[in-house]
């Protein structure tokens, strides 16, 4: 499934990396420990987190993740979004919490 469709179905707001929404995602990974994401996420995963520190962009790039969903309506600061745009990493914002978004994404991908 493409990120574009996920944005629509999960009612996400794209905050950055809008030029890169056609990628097919390989699955999801939910974690707020960046060291864990580096160790265990897989290429093409959509990463669900509440962390908004700039390092999330570098981690997404490093692991070739399809994008990041930031939960709980948390808004990354300008520097993070700027970096995301430079690196072409989609940053999507959700009002829901990680539990709900993970469940919904899981259902979407299973269908």
């Amino acid at each position, binding site marked *: 499934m493409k990120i574009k469709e996920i944005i629509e179905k999960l009612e996400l707001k794209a905050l950055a990396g809008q030029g890169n929404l056609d990628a097919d995602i390989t699955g999801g990974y939910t974690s707020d420990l960046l060291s864990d994401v580096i160790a265990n996420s897989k290429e093409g995963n959509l990463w669900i987190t509440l962390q908004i520190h700039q*390092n999330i962009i570098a981690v997404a790039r490093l692991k070739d993740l399809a994008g990041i969903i930031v939960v709980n309506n948390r808004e990354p600061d300008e520097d993070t979004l700027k970096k995301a745009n430079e690196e072409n990493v989609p940053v999507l914002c959700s009002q829901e919490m990680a539990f709900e978004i993970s469940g919904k994404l899981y259902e979407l991908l299973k269908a």
Partner: protein
Amino acid sequence: MLRLFKADLHIHTCLSPCTELDMSPKGILTAAKEKGIDILGICDHNSSENSLAIIKAAKNLSIQILPGMEVTSEEEVHVLALFDDIGNAQKLQRHVYKHLPGKNDEETFGMQVIVNEKEEVLGFSDKLLIGATTLPLDEVLRLIHSFEGLAIASHIDREAFSIIGQLGFIPDNLGLDALEISPSITIEEARQKFPYNYPITCSSDAHYPDDIGKSFTSFLIQDGTVKEIKKALKNEDGRKLIQ
């Protein structure tokens, strides 16, 4: 004149919920004296309220006490903040308290005992000191430095609450003064595992008197102040970190 100072820059007192009453000024100073510690950094979680008691209790001892705290950033990264002046530690504390939500639950987390230099209990902090502030890491460092403090990333070799565990790696241009390693890793191992261009300090992160000085950092400096330690970390004016 420069001389060698043995510094344990990270110990907790009975104010941290994860310690017991034996981490009182007397308990701490007796242990520090036995271990030959010259400089002691008081780093309770998100609070500096017991620093003054230890400073006063150490008045007639040859141990220099640096008031400070171990701040938990929004990302749940632990950072040590140490100061020469208790007033500056208190300034940081005001910012931290303003951004520290929640109330402590003694049954779950433990007591947070505020004491004086005579070992008398003055009260109990009801703040959730074990929790995280809502201050982003960048802001924590900016605040520490704006109050002339020393900012050291805590126990970078641990997964829990360390900058590398939480953020995957150390972001550029963060302005940390040093990286701290816990007693469970040697400097050589740390240099290999974490190839960052930062000075490394070793401290005990003591929660029990016996652990004080278990790991320490030696500085060649003039006196036991943050000002001198900062020079040593930058290799200035002959001041040095001895490793």
